[in-house]
């Protein structure tokens, strides 16, 4: 089902300001939409408004063509997976999964059939008669998913469902969740603060900060064309390198004067009105070029290597410019670098992200 939000806003009782406001968002039918943002930005608040657990202060929320602002959670045809899983501790896994069907007075055979089906998909068959306290964290996570999926809801809501799992299990569950989403053919809204999760799972990412949508797009949009400096910094690991400086006749000059980058034609065009004004330039760690592949006349910066993190296939270099600016670069693993060595690095002129110095909005 399509979920549309029009000027949605929430102000909690006893708070001075709106926690989130002016949220305009359309989530297509069967999309996997990830709501991403730093802790405390109002992601859960937004999700809980969709679930009906929080009231809507202003704006309209539609499921399909139906206005659901005042519809009870149980009548919204949704399912939700909580961060804490919220399993009913006194019930067996079977009863946990069956609970929502029982509440809807489904026939016994139907319930039994659906529970077994869900258990099979989630590999829970062996644990159906255990209590939640007797199974592992990963299995509890699956029970929570099972509980949400048996009813075949129209909208599937998840609030940081993987944050309590260890790294290995999390990676595995990411793939399973996407698979489950495809299988259920529902609209999924998934909340997380982990950009890697968002990048790997989402059809669409909605990046929230300070109660507003910073950018709404595909993972590749957010990575390759961040709408503002916040998005650029939030998405990607290692974090994007940012220089502050000015545009001087088609060239970027950093505040300390250490970094000079000639802009390509497209970027020159985009910054025509910014001559002499402050801008930020962002460049991702993998867009620096190693010394060996530098061509004559290309811009290069010279930096001292401070720390090397070798991951095998690639290595992260933390380097320092003479003015003590720290940069992170990602280089192929087979190249040889040593700590405290000085190297020249090139900058790919097509990889620059330019942002206004005051509004921090993207220029190019």
């Amino acid at each position, binding site marked *: 089902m399509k979920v549309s939000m029009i000027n949605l806003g929430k102000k909690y009782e006893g708070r001075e300001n709106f926690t989130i406001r002016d949220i305009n968002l359309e989530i297509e039918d069967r999309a996997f939409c990830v709501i991403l943002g730093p802790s405390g930005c109002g992601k859960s608040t937004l999700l809980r408004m969709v679930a009906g657990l929080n009231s809507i202060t202003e704006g309209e929320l539609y499921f399909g063509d139906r206005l659901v602002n005042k519809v009870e959670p149980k009548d919204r045809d949704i399912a939700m997976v909580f961060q*804490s899983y919220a399993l009913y501790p006194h019930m067996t896994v079977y009863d946990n999964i069956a609970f929502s069907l029982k509440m809807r007075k489904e026939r016994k055979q139907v319930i039994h059939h659906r529970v077994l089906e869900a258990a099979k998909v989630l590999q829970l068959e062996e644990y159906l008669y255990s*209590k939640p306290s007797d199974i592992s964290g990963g299995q509890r996570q699956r029970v929570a998913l099972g509980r949400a999926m048996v009813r075949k809801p129209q909208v599937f809501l998840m609030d940081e469902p993987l944050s309590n799992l260890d790294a290995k299990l999390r990676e595995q569950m990411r793939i399973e969740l996407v698979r489950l989403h495809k299988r259920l053919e529902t609209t999924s809204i998934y909340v997380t603060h982990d950009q890697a999760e968002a990048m790997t799972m989402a059809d669409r990412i909605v990046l929230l900060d300070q109660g507003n949508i910073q950018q709404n797009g595909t993972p590749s949009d957010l990575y390759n064309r961040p709408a503002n400096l916040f998005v650029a910094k939030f998405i990607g690991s290692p974090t994007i390198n940012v220089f502050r400086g000015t545009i001087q006749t088609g060239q970027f000059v950093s505040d300390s004067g250490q970094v000079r980058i000639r802009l390509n034609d497209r970027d020159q065009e985009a910054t025509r009105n910014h001559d002499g004004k402050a801008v930020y330039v962002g460049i991702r760690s993998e867009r620096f070029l190693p010394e060996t592949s530098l061509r004559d006349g290309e811009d290069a910066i010279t930096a001292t290597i401070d720390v090397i993190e070798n991951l095998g296939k690639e290595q992260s270099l933390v380097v320092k410019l003479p003015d003590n600016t720290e940069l992170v670069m990602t280089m192929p693993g087979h190249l040889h670098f040593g700590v405290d060595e000085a190297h020249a690095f090139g900058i790919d002129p097509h990889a620059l992200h330019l942002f206004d110095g005051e509004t921090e909005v993207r220029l190019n």
Partner: protein
Amino acid sequence: MAILNREVKKKSGDLYLSDKPPLTTAGKVGLGFTYFILIVFAFIVLWPIYQIVVNSFNGAQARNIILGGGFSFSLRHFEHLFQETNYLHWVKNTIFIGIATAIITVLIVSFTGYAFSRFRFKGKKFSLLLIMLIQVIPTFAGITAYFTLHQIIVGVVPFFSRQMLLVMIYAGGGIASNTFILKGYMDSISPELDEAAHIDGSTNMQTYRLIIMPLVRPMLAIIALWSFIIPFLDYMLPSILLNRNQDYTLATGLFTLISDQRTMNQPAFAAGGMLTALPIVTFFMLLQNQLVSGLSAGSVKG
């Protein structure tokens, strides 16, 4: 190698395995002192109970208990209790009042506790505090009001007995503190459980009955037990409110055996007091299964 092994084995016989550091001399003296105090206290508690048991079976005792006399086993004090007094009535009355108090208290406190724990409403903070404050005034101070109240209610509901009034006073008196305790217990249960249940399609009532109540059962059992015991312990109110010997509770009834020269029988009083423990112990055993706690474990991550 073999020698070494044997040595290790020999030593393991007197390995020091406790997690606590070994006692110093001062520590040992302190420990001895602690044991001494505990034994004295145990004696203070157990001696009267011992006397009660012995004297209630002692046929050599007459109407007044005399310590240091002879002992001859007999059940005649029990016979006196069952045949010459309204003892069985008293037991029945007390159990009735106890059970009614427990049921009413648990029912009311279930709702108030849930409401105070889960819902936001105007005056939430103050209302509970106010009731608590009012309860500081001894129940006894309201005695004239109770009489008037009873008369008014009897006007409307003729079969409303003095015992029922007693139940009302006991149950009402416990509501504030029990609500407070139950609310605290419920607050420790994640509200996400309620929310999950709501999304799963249950109403507030169903959420309470199917999710919350099973989890707070140990606390409800304790509240039920406390409420059940009240009429066994209270002497003052029943002695004023109840006026026929056969309406008495155990406390007031038994008291007639030591207060009134005409009905004086101290060994029977001891025997009756001893038997009083039976219904309480029975009730406790019935509730014991419910008292098993630790159900909340496992709902939230691990």
